[in-house]
């Protein structure tokens, strides 16, 4: 194993983690402020990817595709929130799970009906198609590097938004005491719609960005959604800092596990079975990490008392 290969995998893990953060931060905001568990968050990821692929394919511009993804996911978020989600804030978690599961069925099949069952392809922009050479002579995909940079910038922007702006004040106030800020004259239902649309836009953006390194297809959102849940369980619910740390932990554990475990087993087994055993165990690594966190800190690394 060469150090260059290892650093490349490390960067892949970082990139994966950052994209998970874009999903998990929206989920954790929506849960923190509205107390809602939203399974349809993965559908917003999918909507972003499809909007980007459709618009980029039609216009030939990747950036226009990204703008379309943001707009489509945010618009879908506003519609979903006003039509369905709003009726669920005062319901128990079971009703929220079922109603948002129903939304997954409707949105997934609706997308299949519109776009068909075949995957779409989203081309990387030509100016990010090749590799870049990093210090130390490491060749790395410029697109993936851009994902890391953009993701970190969005994370920083989100922290700034939550801690230094008026909207952020309201979001944090909504997290700690919803009746009180309503009594102080904040239009709580508008705030909820904004928070939901913000989370939706982040998910849609993640879908569009990831759509260019994998195929864009129906059902692409749910595996990412479940990983985002693992992130939230590890990081602690409602905490954006927890979502960031959890997302990086999950991204690195998954990527490095897939890379290192087969090599590790290769030292004691023949290569074929080492690959089989190593990759099977690697697919379980992040869930083991989650189980470990549950044993030590059931409320998550940055969560308050459960």
């Amino acid at each position, binding site marked *: 194993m060469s150090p260059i290969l290892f650093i490349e995998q490390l960067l892949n893990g970082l990139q994966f983690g950052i994209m998970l953060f874009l999903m998990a931060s929206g989920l954790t905001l929506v849960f923190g402020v509205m107390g809602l568990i939203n399974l349809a968050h993965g559908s917003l990821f999918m909507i972003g990817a499809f909007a980007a692929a459709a618009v980029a394919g039609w216009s030939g511009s990747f950036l226009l595709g990204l703008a379309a993804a943001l707009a489509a996911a945010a618009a879908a978020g506003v519609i979903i929130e006003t039509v369905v989600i709003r009726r669920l804030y005062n319901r128990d978690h079971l009703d929220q799970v079922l109603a948002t599961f*129903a939304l997954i*069925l409707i949105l997934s099949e609706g997308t299949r009906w519109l776009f068909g069952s075949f995957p779409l392809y989203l081309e990387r922009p030509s100016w990010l198609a090749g590799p870049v050479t990093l210090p130390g002579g490491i060749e790395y995909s410029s697109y993936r590097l851009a994902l890391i940079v953009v993701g970190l910038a969005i994370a920083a922007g989100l922290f700034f938004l939550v801690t230094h702006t008026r909207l952020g004040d309201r979001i944090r106030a909504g997290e700690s005491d919803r009746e009180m800020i309503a009594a102080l004259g904040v239009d709580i239902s508008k705030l909820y719609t904004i928070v939901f649309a913000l989370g939706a836009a982040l998910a849609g953006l993640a879908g569009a960005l990831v759509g260019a390194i994998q195929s864009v297809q129906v059902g692409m959102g749910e*595996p990412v959604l*479940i990983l985002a*849940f*693992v992130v939230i*369980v590890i990081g602690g619910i409602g905490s954006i800092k927890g979502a960031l740390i959890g997302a990086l932990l999950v991204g690195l554990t998954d990527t490095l596990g897939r890379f290192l475990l087969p090599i590790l087993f290769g030292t004691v087994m023949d290569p074929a079975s080492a690959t089989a055993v190593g990759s099977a165990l690697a697919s379980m690594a992040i869930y083991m990490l989650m189980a470990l966190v*549950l044993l030590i800190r059931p409320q998550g690394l940055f969560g308050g008392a459960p």
Partner: protein
Amino acid sequence: MSGAVTNIRSGARREWVINLVLLAGLGLVPLWAWFADAPFTITLATRAAILALAGTGLNIALGMGGLVSFGHAVFFGIGGYAMGILASHAQNYDPLVQWPVVIEGTQFMPVIWIVAILAGAVAALVIGALSLRTSGVYFIMITLAFGQMFYYFAISWPAYGGEDGLAIYVRNGFPGLNTLDPIQYFALCFAVLLVVLFFNARLIRSPFGLALNAARQSTQRVEAVGMDPFRLRLAAFVLSGAITALAGALFADLNRFASPAMFSWQLSGEIMVFVILGGVARLCGPLAGAVVFVMLEHFLGGLSEYWHIFLGLLLLLVVLLAKGGLIGLLSGRGAAHG
């Protein structure tokens, strides 16, 4: 006040009538199909009976215990693979374990069922012990995540088919029955369902069932009288997982195929949908839900490739408007508990 009590009583009586009609219907339709020589209808009814069994398992955790498990496909899949692994070893004359003792596979259903139940119970014990350390929305996310773990493991573990799943050539045997005959296999599955429903009805009224119900309503009060809510819930979760695993073994035998899709999160969602469509915490709620689900799948699926849209809309309406599910709607009893 007395009017309300009479209402509850007549609602309860009506629910029993509905239950009997449901069970009689599920028993009689295949009988009619057998005379009319419509084996596909019998297969649909068998599917409904098995899915109802899986839902009945979940209903113990969800309805009685208030544990919103979004990972019950784990147990369904474990049951399926218990069948697939035992039967494939038996059909290939390849012992399951060579050392220290030789353990052969088997195609004998009762043994397969016991193994499925035990394997499901052990998995539920481990998953339950971890996830019951939390509650509420954490519990939902964690059970969903463990479900995904089993799914990926089944896909990436090549010894038992990986992504292709595990097929067996002939359905496993049961003494005195020809299980390949659709009506006989239906009768067997229906009988298992009846036994489990009877057991479940007894369980609801047992001291354990009452304590579990109390723990759902108020953890503090149950603790105050000296019971441990964690252990009550864990026991319910284990029982629930074991029953769903049994359903998984029957389901894999129906298709003669154990597929990694049995572990998928969609299936966990669907099992939950049976329970909710029919009505949470009602004895025959999962049965009503599974029958409606199989009928929708058959009729809507025939009309449109995109029938999941209609299923989604129906589910959304039931959740937003009809608390208490179909049985609640029909018996006029509203939600079984709030």
